[in-house]
């Protein structure tokens, strides 16, 4: 009899192995995320049938294919509005949006902007590998300046987006930056984020040795992993000013924002009670 994985009960095991390349960081993200969900379920704070995964398009979005929960693999960039549609109708749902930096920050940029502004009750996990992996190595808004991509073959001339700063500025209740190089920290962030009302936004720095690693000369998964690990530093409660996004200077991991403002569902419910209270 094959020895099962402790997370098997939460997985569509008939779909394993995943489609991800050897050395991809996404397995770490899925593992830590499911462990955090498991803890919340065991503690009685989440009902399994109320947890759902939604992904747009990209390697990260495919994470929605594997968990044995309600899940949706929708259009590129559109996971957030889909998830919010579900959430408004069924506020008891815990909607987990999984997407890459392209899915969330580029094509889904307008949606994440307004979801953050609304403090929408979603856990958004943006896995940032700094490149378009699935389509073969094109420019992402997170690609460090100067680096080669297939669509900026002479070096990316553009400034990178700092989603932590954006999320903090627009009012998410929880904003953290983790990394696949620090799985325990990541799991703790997810665990905490799952209990938040309002928007929880977690950026996860991850490794794509097959594409990003190849571009920058670290094709061996372990080499890229160690390279990223050199460039991150963990801080307890860093300030948003410390969130600078720089491959050169490195990245600060930690919980940038942890507050408890009313979430979208709170204010929307209050709006509905005003409608019903007005004699409608």
């Amino acid at each position: 009899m094959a020895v099962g994985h402790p997370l098997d009960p939460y997985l569509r095991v008939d779909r394993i192995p995943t489609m991800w390349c050897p050395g991809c960081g996404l397995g770490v993200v899925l593992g830590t995320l499911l462990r955090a969900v498991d803890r919340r379920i065991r503690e009685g704070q989440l009902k399994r049938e109320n947890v759902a995964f939604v992904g747009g398009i990209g390697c990260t979005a495919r994470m929605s294919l594997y968990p044995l929960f309600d899940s949706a693999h929708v259009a590129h960039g559109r996971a957030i509005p889909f998830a919010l549609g579900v959430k408004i109708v069924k506020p008891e749902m815990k909607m987990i949006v999984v997407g890459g930096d392209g899915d969330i920050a580029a094509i889904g940029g307008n949606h994440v902007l307004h979801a953050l502004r609304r403090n929408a009750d979603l856990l958004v996990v943006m896995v940032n590998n700094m490149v378009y992996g699935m389509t073969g190595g094109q420019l992402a808004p997170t690609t460090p300046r100067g680096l080669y991509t297939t669509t900026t073959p002479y070096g990316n001339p553009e400034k990178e987006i700092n989603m932590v700063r954006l999320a903090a500025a627009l009012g998410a209740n929880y904003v953290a930056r983790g990394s696949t190089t620090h799985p325990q920290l990541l799991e703790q962030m997810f665990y905490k984020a799952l209990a938040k009302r309002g928007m929880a936004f977690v950026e996860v720095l991850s490794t794509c040795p097959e594409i990003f690693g190849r571009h920058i000369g670290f094709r061996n998964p372990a080499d890229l992993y160690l390279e990223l690990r050199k460039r991150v530093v963990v801080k307890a409660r860093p300030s948003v000013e410390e969130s600078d996004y720089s491959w050169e200077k490195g990245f600060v991991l930690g919980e940038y924002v942890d507050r408890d403002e009313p979430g979208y569902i709170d204010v929307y419910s209050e709006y509905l009670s005003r409608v019903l209270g007005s004699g409608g």
Partner: protein
Amino acid sequence: MRYEYITGNTAIAKASITAGLKFYAGYPITPTSDIFEYLARELPKRGGHVVQFEDEIASINAAVGASWACAKSMTATSGPGFSLMLETLSLAVITETPLVVAYVMRTGPSTGVPTRSGQYDVLQATYGFHGGLVIPVLAPSTPQEAYDLTVRAFNVSEELRTPVVLLSDAVVAHTYGKVAVRERGEVEVVDRGKPSVSPEAYRPYDPLGGLVPPMACFGEGYNVLVESLTHDERGYYAPRTDIQRRLMWRLYRKVVESSEKLFDYSATHLDGCEHALVSYGSTALSARAAAKLLREEGFRACSVTLRTLFPVYEEGVAGLLKGVEKVFVVENNVGLYFRELRGVLRDKEVVSVPLIDLDMPLPQEVAGVVKKWL
């Protein structure tokens, strides 16, 4: 049932509530905003949700999500917004999501004349999304039809698990009319089929020998999979020709094989008619008045108003116009639906009467063009 004097847009809004609408997501756009505004006032009082999103893309995606949370969902828009929605309309097709899109056509292309009318988007309504399948398109020509076809659009979308386009236009939108407004219980309301098996045995895209799979929603413990990739009955990605064939033909057949059931039209003076003026939407009123003018001049003219534009029920249309000598397709565009009908009526002379008008073509103008062919 009671009679009300309301516009086509208000008729759509009222009918959607009767049909069971529970979630409306939208982005303001002329000439649909009054549907949105009416629902924003009335739907929350009845336990429904109305939310303005950041754009039409978010709106239709939220509506698709809400539909998977068991809520009957709708959005409304016009050309520029519908163009943005097309990507997700395709998602709704492959995920078999019940959804109504009220498409109120205005003058185009691009921004065109936002407040005025046209029928330029009749083909886009069903052919616009990528993937080469057909979705039902129902077209009202009066406020009463806007009411009746809205109820129908919801029922069809639930029964077939498909997005349905309710194709109105700026004239119908703003025309007032006497409308028989009905309550729940006074009209047939169809709800999607639900699974009768255990969550373990449930396969979200298994049609169980038919063409339309039962649909579980989020939060019911069925571990549903909403999958935009080509998928098997479980919802698992399956990049295989045999799976793609099976999926495509089922999605195609479930709509096209409903064409007889979906076929809907009205006709005047069809008996002994030699020259049929076929039209749809607000232009159908011009065609009907033009046919009357022609009859006054001694021609054996009749008018046919098509309320179902897609899927085209070929035998039905051919049968309806069997005894007619010439068919004139009157529309407020360059002659688009004419192409559909010409393909169906191969043994008949089919003449395009494309009359571009910011409102509706004048009956005299329609009659004048038709007479040149008599």
